[in-house]
């Protein structure tokens, strides 16, 4: 199929892409050069703002208005895409170059059937009959291993799961057997087991069809799983490029070294002393069901058993990880413990108090003892309050005079590694990692006994994630905190948790010390979860481990 196998399929030469005035820097990409051979997967990896997505969209010429290349060339099969006419680009898009995106929910038109949206690619570029298109679409859905291809053909996007939607996107991108597939974070929005299957699918099809794949990701685990070669980007510059095995295990650039060092290895942490302490928090038979429906379209109430009969205990001074995929009920459980939700049954014993039995008013008085750190560093701080005030708010609610509360906030800022001089700033003036630190200081301000952390690092870049994890770990020891750590990421869990409970469909399927769960998982689901972690065989800093 590839008659031009002599030269590279795609070659980016000294490419610069200009940002509109007022952006945080003048260029999204500055002098980037790299090439992609037919039949290889090149992973472009970098943190947010590195310009990796801009690179993908430049190749496709789908940049937002105001953003445009101002130097360099993008040669695809020896044609310069930067200089190509819009009509020429339209002929290439979807036919010679396919693209898949990060959010499979929003990337599909919600009002049109999946089959119709795949078929559209044929209708744009070919003169096939409706019948032939239908057959080809069905064949594509079979190729991307859609569970029921005939039904998926007629399904609307909202009737499909996240993974199925991404399969539709892949089918759409592959419809006309493009020579180049651009995948922009295609598995970031998916659960880990689904992610594993989609990565496998992309790899298989790439091999079978001999495509070149430009794969954009922020996740070194994914890189280890799928890449032939790796390009590392930082702030619009290419930092390092080379074969995957070399870059992952013997990174040359200091930036790459730092990034890889921040990736938590999929190994349990060394056991700590004193983890056999008596329990401070004990859950017994906690259940929570949701009744959804009503509103403007009443009578469609659906009952979801979000948490089913969960019993767990948290020894004093330790971290208990609650691990599960989306919909496993882990966040609902966390919200029941801090009584943002009222559990239907069961007891939640903190010391001698059953939190589940308290009235709203009584819980308000006990609120101090269990605090929560939230996932989204952008949504978890009131955008209109100054950082110092946010932290001082808790003590002030309990009657501490303002000056005293602010003095405490000052001390906490230092404790969590923020400059107390920044207390007068508004949340939007802080970075994501700094906001998470503010959220942590706010929780600590009322001297809690138990800290519930709900995915506190999942919205952060890997280097910031490592810092926040280290901070949490040291604070627990210094302040004698007990911590409940909710996460979907087994790497993160292995880094910080003494014990782990695995949840699936609202129930705990397995619980035990981290090392035991990692090395000798009892439940089949735990094994599946561990197997699905991308790049599980790659241990950062241990070059002898083979790439998948």
């Amino acid at each position, binding site marked *: 199929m590839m008659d031009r196998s002599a030269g590279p399929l795609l070659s980016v030469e000294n490419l610069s892409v200009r940002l509109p005035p007022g952006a945080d820097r003048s260029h999204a990409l500055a002098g980037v050069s790299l090439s992609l051979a037919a039949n290889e997967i090149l992973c472009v990896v970098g943190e*947010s703002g*590195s310009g*990796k997505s*801009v690179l993908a969209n430049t190749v496709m010429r789908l940049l937002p*208005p105001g953003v445009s290349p101002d130097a360099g060339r993008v040669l695809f099969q020896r044609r310069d895409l930067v200089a190509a006419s819009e009509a020429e680009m339209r002929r290439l898009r979807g036919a010679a170059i396919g693209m898949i995106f990060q959010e499979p929910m929003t990337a599909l038109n919600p009002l049109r059937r999946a089959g119709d949206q795949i078929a559209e690619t044929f209708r744009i570029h070919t003169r096939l009959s409706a019948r032939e298109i239908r057959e080809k679409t069905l064949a594509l859905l079979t190729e991307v291993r859609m569970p029921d291809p005939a039904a998926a053909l007629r399904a609307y996007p909202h009737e499909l799961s996240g993974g199925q939607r991404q399969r539709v996107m892949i089918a759409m991108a592959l419809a006309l057997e493009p020579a180049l597939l651009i995948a922009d974070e295609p598995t970031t929005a998916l659960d880990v087991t689904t992610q594993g299957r989609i990565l496998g699918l992309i790899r298989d099809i790439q091999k079978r069809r001999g495509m070149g794949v430009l794969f954009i990701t*922020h996740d070194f685990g994914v890189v280890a799983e799928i890449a032939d070669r790796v390009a590392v980007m930082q702030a619009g510059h290419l930092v390092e490029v080379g074969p995957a095995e070399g870059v992952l295990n013997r990174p040359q650039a200091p930036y790459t070294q730092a990034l890889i060092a921040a990736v938590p290895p999929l190994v349990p942490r060394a056991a700590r002393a004193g983890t056999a302490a008596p329990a401070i928090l004990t859950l017994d038979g906690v259940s929570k069901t949701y009744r959804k429906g009503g509103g403007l379209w009443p009578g469609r109430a659906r009952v979801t058993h979000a948490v089913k009969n969960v019993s767990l205990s948290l020894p004093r001074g330790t971290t208990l990880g609650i691990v599960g995929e989306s919909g496993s009920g882990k966040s609902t459980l966390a919200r029941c413990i801090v009584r*943002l939700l009222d559990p239907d049954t069961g007891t939640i014993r903190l010391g001698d108090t059953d939190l589940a039995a308290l009235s709203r008013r009584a819980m308000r008085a006990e609120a101090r003892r269990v605090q929560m750190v939230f996932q989204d560093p952008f*949504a978890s701080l009131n955008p209109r309050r100054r950082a110092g005030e946010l932290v001082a708010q808790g003590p002030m609610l309990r009657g501490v005079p303002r000056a005293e509360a602010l003095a405490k906030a000052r001390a906490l800022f230092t404790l969590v590694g923020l400059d107390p001089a920044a207390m007068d700033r508004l949340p939007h003036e802080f970075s994501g990692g700094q906001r998470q630190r503010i959220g942590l200081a706010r929780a600590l301000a009322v001297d809690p006994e138990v800290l519930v952390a709900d995915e506190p690092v999942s919205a952060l870049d890997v280097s910031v994630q490592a810092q926040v994890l280290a901070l949490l770990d040291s604070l627990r020891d210094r302040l004698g905190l007990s911590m409940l750590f909710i996460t979907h990421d087994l790497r993160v869990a292995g880094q910080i948790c003494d014990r782990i409970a695995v949840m699936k469909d609202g129930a705990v399927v397995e619980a035990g010390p981290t090392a035991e769960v990692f090395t000798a998982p009892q439940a089949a689901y735990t094994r599946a979860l561990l197997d699905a972690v991308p790049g599980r065989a790659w241990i950062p800093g241990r070059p002898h481990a083979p790439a998948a």
Partner: protein
Amino acid sequence: MAALRRYLRNPAALLGAVLLLLVIAVALAAPLLFPKDPLGLAGRPLQWPFVNPKVWLGTDASGRDIAAQVFHGARVSLLIGLVATVIAIAIGIAVGAVAGFYGGIVDDALMRVTEAFQTLPNFLLLLVLVAVFGSDIATVTVAIGLVSWPAPARLTRAEFLTLRNREFVQACRVLGMGDARIIAREILPNALPPVIVYASVVMAVAILLESALAFLNLSDPNVASWGNLIGAGRGVLRTQWYVSAIPGVAILVTVLAVSLVGQGLNDALNPRLRGPAPVKAAP
């Protein structure tokens, strides 16, 4: 401050502000320039504008000074618009905040009432209220406020529905903060900007409602309202069309000014909606 700068850089918004200031100036100047009763006899009826410098906008069929009525009409329109808007927005925020924050049965009940109000054509409802309570200016103002609250209520509710589940609100609950404080101090300030912007729409509609009512002779006949004057001019439309035309322009300018200011505020408070979206790289 950034919002103010964005506002001042927007020519349409600036024009709106200038026009609005002009209307306000006219309203303030009315008693100084035309100290006599604007509804009193000023001269020979039906004089064309720009003929007699004493009554430079001419006189209507009863010999009343059109310029005096236009100037005094600005006071009436602005006052009715402002007070009715305050009433509508206050009710709307109260209903919307409670419905959106508590949800469930409270929400269902309040939204039923809101929907029912929206099912009744607001101008018809206004007619009923005027028929029952009479048509002096205070009654008309309150009535306009009473028929205008459902839209701001729905808007406030929508804002509260999204904000109440934000993590910063949950964080306040976890800290043990009470409902009233969360509603008033945490959510409301964040929900307010779109409601304030919408107030300009309510005010524009309120001014139009009053003028329509006055045009139909159902508003207070004892105040110089632009709508009254247009209605009075209907009888001589065939020949002296200027009697109706002039106050109509005054209404147009006022409503346009209010709308432009509202839109300018909207653009200044939601900068991302203007022009191309900022470039955001994937995480």
